[in-house]
């Protein structure tokens, strides 16, 4: 059986940034907390010894990828069941001015399109536009090429433009 105590150390070390990330998108809600927990359950199930041996960047990339996907699932569920919508996401402390406005706009984009576009585009949007990763960083987290990240964002922006046309027509 894997060493749960050693994994507890990993858990305590990485929970705060994962929690911060989930709250950026989902707010300080129970949904965000459940995504955090589910992320670590999956890390545990995937083999906690590997996490213990890996460097922090590798572990964080894995956690980012997993919790991003899970958070998007929550957003889609919220769209399907508006009665379950959580609180509006709060901005975190580090953002202010234009950066905060961009993050809020990015969240709205993701919320608007979460049930209309493929999850890969949403992942790229969350990482690059909400979390502020560079495209090379997002590519490493997602395990794809930078060119693919760029294309995903372009397609997302096209979908947004189409949605605006529909909405205003």
């Amino acid at each position, binding site marked *: 059986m894997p060493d749960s105590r050693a*994994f507890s150390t990993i858990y305590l070390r990485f929970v705060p940034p994962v929690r*911060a990330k989930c709250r950026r998108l989902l707010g300080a809600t129970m949904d965000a907390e459940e995504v955090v927990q589910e992320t*670590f359950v999956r890390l545990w199930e995937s083999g906690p010894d590997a996490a213990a041996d890996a460097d922090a960047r590798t572990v964080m990339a894995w956690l980012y990828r997993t919790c991003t996907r899970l958070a998007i699932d929550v957003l889609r569920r919220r769209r399907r069941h508006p009665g379950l919508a959580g609180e509006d996401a709060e901005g975190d402390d580090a953002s202010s001015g234009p950066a905060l406005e961009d993050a809020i706009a990015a969240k709205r*984009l993701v919320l608007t399109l979460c049930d209309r576009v493929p999850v890969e585009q949403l992942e790229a949007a969350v990482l690059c536009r909400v979390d502020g990763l560079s495209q090379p960083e997002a590519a490493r987290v997602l395990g794809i090429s930078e060119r693919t990240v760029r294309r995903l964002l372009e397609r997302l922006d096209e979908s947004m433009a189409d949605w605006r046309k529909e909405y205003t027509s």
Partner: protein
Amino acid sequence: MTRPEMHPVSRFELDVHWSSGRPAEATIEAHVLACGACQRYLAHLDRIAAEPAPSWNPRGERSAGGPRAAPWRTWLALSGTAAAVAFGTLIYLRARPAAQWGDPGAYVGVKGSPAVQVLVRTSAGTSVWDGRAPVHPGDALALEVAFEGVERVAVAAPSPHGGAWTRLAEAECVRAPLLLPFTLVIDEQPEDERVAIVFSAERIDDGDLTAAIEGEARTRDVWVAGFVLHKSIVKP
């Protein structure tokens, strides 16, 4: 959509840096020291780290082929009175006196002192620990506390490397009884499980926590209760 202006250091890099303990020699630390936005973000992570966190529970309740259960919901939901009742009659074992650490059996404690109840969850169900029965690998333990006049409670276990005690969880004592947001899953290591519950008037740092546990503090400001759970690898 307007592309956001890229900050030279992303949150991902800050997250990696923070979770690595903010090594002073890292290039990024030099940037952080000069950047208010990055300092605010790292302070944000520090605040989150100080929040009570549900303890790690690796025993997921996955049902093969079925929808995945959310194991942590069980523990997170169990903070209300109704859920506490679900664990059965609220019979309290008084915390062991420090001098009796390791001795089996319940005892009569002093009226008004904090009390701890250990709940053991096995494949057969959940029961109140009687203070004697061994626990087995895979058993999950929860702690319910009752208290008067204390503000905070922390749960700690011996560090695997010896020396200090490791703080596993903590909570504010907002109401009693309080089911702590903490689960201890018994592993297959042969040594017995030792757990300390530290009640305090205010949050104490890790050094003081260890000192209180090792000193078996029993004062108005800090009160330590400890358990030794003998482990059996023989399935019940």
